[in-house]
């Protein structure tokens, strides 16, 4: 939201763009330095690296993990699961949501499931997924597909229900038939809702993959975090957590840039 506002402001006064961007970058840097200082002080005060490693120690841990190639492998494993599950889930979720939005019968039929599963986080299904789909990739991907389908379908459905009736009416009296109304009015009108659903689903996918990797996996950032605990390598846990934050940040930015360039005309706001 903040970013969206900032974008609007800069769009209106393009001449101010560079100075405002500079200012933001400076504040960003100061904020980071503050965090590092507080962290260093705390670590120095606690003085037990196994309890709270310092930034320097964490950085050394990261170098170590990168040198051995372990960190890259874990990042790749987690990302692969997220991307496959997220893509599959979106591909199923969009048509399902459209169907639920368009057909009252389908909506009523799905309603009990939606209301029931709404309160069950994907993490609750981790053990079941392992029993059913084993320790391999399938169990993690299935869980991500589940959370993505759910979020994308519900947001798409809400979008369909929110299409202004006057838009449909306008299309009908301009000579469109029902199929054309669906393709040329309903679908473009719900694009922002679909993107919102995908964005929430992406966040959920991260949570899901990490928890699944903690319970049952031989790779992935979640595995790295959980496994490091066994050896009391607290700095590796920190590396894992920071990596996750960066991965989330990067995917969020990527989604934003994609939406802003490819879906510009649909007025998608992230």
């Amino acid at each position, binding site marked *: 939201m903040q970013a969206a506002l900032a974008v609007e402001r800069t769009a209106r006064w393009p001449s101010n763009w560079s100075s405002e961007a500079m200012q933001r970058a400076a504040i960003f840097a100061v904020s980071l330095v503050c965090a590092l200082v507080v962290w260093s002080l705390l670590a120095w005060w606690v003085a037990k690296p196994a309890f709270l490693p310092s930034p320097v120690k964490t950085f050394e841990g990261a170098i170590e993990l990168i040198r051995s190639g372990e960190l890259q492998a874990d990042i790749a494993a987690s990302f692969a699961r997220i991307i496959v599950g997220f893509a599959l889930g979106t591909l199923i979720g969009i048509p399902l949501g459209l169907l639920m939005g368009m057909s009252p019968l389908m909506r009523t039929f799905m309603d009990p499931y939606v209301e029931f599963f709404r309160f069950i986080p994907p993490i609750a299904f981790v053990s079941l997924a392992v029993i059913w789909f084993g320790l391999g990739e399938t169990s993690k991907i299935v869980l991500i597909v589940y959370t993505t389908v759910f979020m994308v379908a519900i947001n798409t459905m809400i979008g369909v229900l929110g299409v202004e009736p006057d838009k449909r009416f306008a299309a009908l*009296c301009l000579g469109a038939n029902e199929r054309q109304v669906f393709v040329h*009015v309903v679908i473009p009108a719900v694009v922002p809702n679909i993107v919102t659903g995908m964005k929430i689903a992406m966040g959920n996918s991260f949570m899901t993959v990490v928890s699944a990797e903690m319970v049952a996996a031989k790779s992935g950032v979640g595995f790295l975090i959980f496994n490091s605990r066994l050896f009391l390598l607290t700095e590796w846990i920190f590396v894992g957590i920071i990596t996750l934050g960066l991965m989330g940040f990067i995917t969020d930015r990527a989604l934003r840039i994609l939406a802003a360039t490819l879906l510009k005309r649909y007025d998608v706001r992230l």
Partner: protein
Amino acid sequence: MPLPDVEVRNAGRTFTKRARPDRGREYVALENVSFSISPGEFLCLLGPSGCGKSTLLRMVAGFLPPSAGEVLVRGDRVKGPGMDRAVVFQGDAALFNWLTTEENVEFGLRMRGLPLAQRRRIVADNIRLVGLEGFEHHHPNQLSGGMRQRVQIARVLANDPAILLMDEPFGALDAQTRGIMQQELSRIWSSRRKTVLFITHDIDESLLLGDRIAVMTAGPGATIKKVLPVPLVRPREFGENFLGLRREIKAAIEEEVMKSMRQVSDASSSGG
């Protein structure tokens, strides 16, 4: 006598209330409404707010079936929306905000599968007619309220419908823009001669635009109070000749406004 383009015969519309505390209770919005519009005629439907003017327009458009009576368009009973009746909506929710001005105007032509060259020509003609040259590639949210209504008008005119249904198209505009749009519509109508049903609660607007003015009573059970011809030459401007007719319409409509206000105060005193 030629067949009227629009004929409404003893039409009524009843709604079942869905909100508490009157859930399930019936509300008679329109009762026994009859009027007709000849080909090429500009009829203004004038009434106090909340009297069911829009409901009536929606029935003619085919968005809403009448609960009683019938609505005929060129002799055929209305069964749903059709290309012969284009609607200009009050708000801009009816515009396709993901499409540019040009693409909005092109929409109907594209749905009907017209060849590209023909579409291009018609779109350019109508954009010029409503004075939106230079804004072809703007999206609705980049246009002012008056310009958005121009897009709506160009969009329906591109489809060349016989009948134009306009639901308070300038109601949300500021006074200056509204004045300009009224003049523009008058000009466009003179060049394209459509049959128009124009809804408004603005007496001056109806006097500027209408060949006849149908004044409605206040709801519930609203109906046509009287139909007045406007024997003024076009292009019209406010002047002495306006005043007599204006006084007559004003008296008629004020009576209805007072009636609806009395109903509201009755309802609140009995309810509270």
